[in-house]
């Protein structure tokens, strides 16, 4: 709780400052930030529990968006039903990835780099598959364009508001889940010290599986939210997962609550950055931030001291 309060405090004043200066950019930043926060949480959850950087949330992001598209637009199903179905598919896919790729590698004691590479492979395979099935033309949910609301001279649409609210609500749910439920506590225990957790009777494999599913759901919801606003195309997950990774590291890679801070920070800085630079540099801005943090503060804003910083 303390960490969370710290984070919220920090964010609040930062936001106030920026909001006063550039409202539309700020709003855009919050919108992007909400997505990055979800992806960062997704990424952090996995890193926390199995200690490797997994890019598959990026693929799940895309799978979810396209699944919802198929159900809602192609089959004409009700939106919420499409959402549920898409999330079920995403869960199944992540279970498959774990069973056929990650678990065998973990059993062979593969190091972090191999797992990172494997997750790249998974990402490329899945997005390639999506490209194969759906083709290269962008798809869209074709929602009618509604006039947005005006706040302090900036425009924000209903969908975007839903996006931000959903992100925050999910995040809160995640925090509550981690703090209060047995499974959540098991996840945290496992993240802290696997040997001890296992000795205390926590079912390791089951907890890991659940973590991956929750992570997948977060990425999946992010995917659908984005798809409502923007076009769908097979490579849409790449930049988003890398920014989720960046946000994770900026917040503090061991620290899931801090992923929220990281996400919104990246979103805002990115959008403020394109005030000065051409908008195509958005990705580069995020990665410059990533590299700066890796060099000067690898533990992120709120993380615990990483192995980088502990003197040998």
């Amino acid at each position, binding site marked *: 709780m303390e960490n969370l309060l710290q984070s919220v405090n920090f964010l609040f004043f930062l936001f106030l400052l920026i909001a006063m200066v550039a409202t539309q950019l700020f709003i855009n930043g919050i919108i992007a930030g909400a997505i990055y926060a979800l992806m960062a949480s997704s990424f952090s959850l996995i890193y926390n529990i199995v200690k490797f950087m997994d890019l598959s949330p990026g693929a799940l992001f895309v799978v979810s968006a396209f699944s919802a598209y198929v159900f809602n637009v192609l089959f004409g199903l009700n939106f919420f039903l499409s959402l549920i179905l898409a999330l079920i598919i995403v869960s199944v896919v992540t279970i498959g990835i774990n069973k056929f790729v990650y678990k065998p590698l973990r059993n062979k004691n593969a*190091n972090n780099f191999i797992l990172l590479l494997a997750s*790249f*492979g*998974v990402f490329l395979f899945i997005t*390639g598959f999506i490209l194969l099935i759906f083709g290269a033309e962008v798809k869209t949910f074709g929602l009618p364009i509604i006039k947005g609301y005006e706040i302090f001279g900036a425009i924000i649409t209903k969908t975007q508001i839903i996006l931000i609210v959903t992100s925050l609500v999910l995040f809160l749910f995640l925090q509550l889940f981690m703090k209060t439920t047995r499974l959540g506590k098991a996840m945290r225990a496992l993240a802290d010290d696997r040997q001890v957790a296992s000795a205390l009777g926590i079912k390791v494999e089951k907890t890991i599986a659940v973590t991956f599913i929750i992570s997948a759901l977060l990425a999946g919801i992010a995917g659908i939210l984005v798809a409502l606003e923007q076009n769908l195309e097979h490579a849409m997950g790449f930049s988003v997962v*890398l920014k989720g990774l960046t946000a994770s590291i900026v917040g503090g890679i061991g620290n899931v609550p801090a992923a929220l801070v990281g996400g919104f920070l990246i979103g805002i800085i990115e959008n403020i950055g394109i005030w000065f630079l051409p908008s195509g540099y958005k990705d580069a801005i995020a990665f410059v931030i*990533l590299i700066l943090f890796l*060099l000067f503060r690898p533990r992120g804003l709120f993380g615990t001291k990483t192995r980088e910083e502990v003197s040998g």
Partner: protein
Amino acid sequence: MALEAYVIHLLILVGIYIILAISLNLAMGFTGLLNIGHVAFYGIGAYTSALLALNLGVPFWLGLLVGGLIAALFGLLLAIPTLKLKGDYFAIATLGFAVIIENIFRNWISLTGGPLGLPGIPKPSLFGFTFSGFSYLILVAFFVFLTYIIIKHITDAPFGRVLKAIREDELATSSLGKNIVKYKTQSLGISAFFAGIAGSLYAHYITFIDPSSFTILESILIISMIIVGGLASMKGAVAGAIILVLLPEPLRFLPLPSFAIGALRQMIYAALLVILLIKRPQGIFGEFSLKKES
């Protein structure tokens, strides 16, 4: 006729990728540097050489050399801040570097032409003779040969031995009086140099370059080549490049739209990488695979 041209085209690509694979192998396989951003050096070499030729009329031979040197310079620049990062953190930093470079290719429109790229890159010429088709293949083969013997010489030499030691155990290596940072930096710089050369060869062959040839996916492809062939194996890098360039070619003959062929290519490469990592991480000729850090 068309068949002959096609085969030559493939072999030229194989040659370029052999250079890329061997150069990455020096940094990754021999020195243990987990560089996911190798493609950035490839692109820097390509753009440098192309721009010099297009804007300043610099002849290919000089452009190639400068392309390699500029790429090497970026290698050194990348090395200095990032070498203190460990394992996967270093990998992520190199990934970030490659994305930033690709962004620059895509957005510095006045210099690089942005997404539209640089067309009309002149082919190399020597005393009035223009290299094209089969003669270009000979040119590429020459550089492949040069790259191979230079890097083999480096890795067989005491210098190479230090690189391998660094890969095995950095701590022990530094306690024997070796300046780890210096060796890693040089390894990365040399690796980048040859990648830059490959880039230049690519640019003056296709005569058109754009940012889409220099994405992270290319890096993953090159990494796959050395994993297939076996890390730290010169023969392996060659074998890996040949296999991975040729493997998806049969797809070209299927009656499918181009995006589908591209998609299948991507899926084949990805699947091969994952399967290899699980089943045979040491590749064909490798003696070892990346192990858990001690």
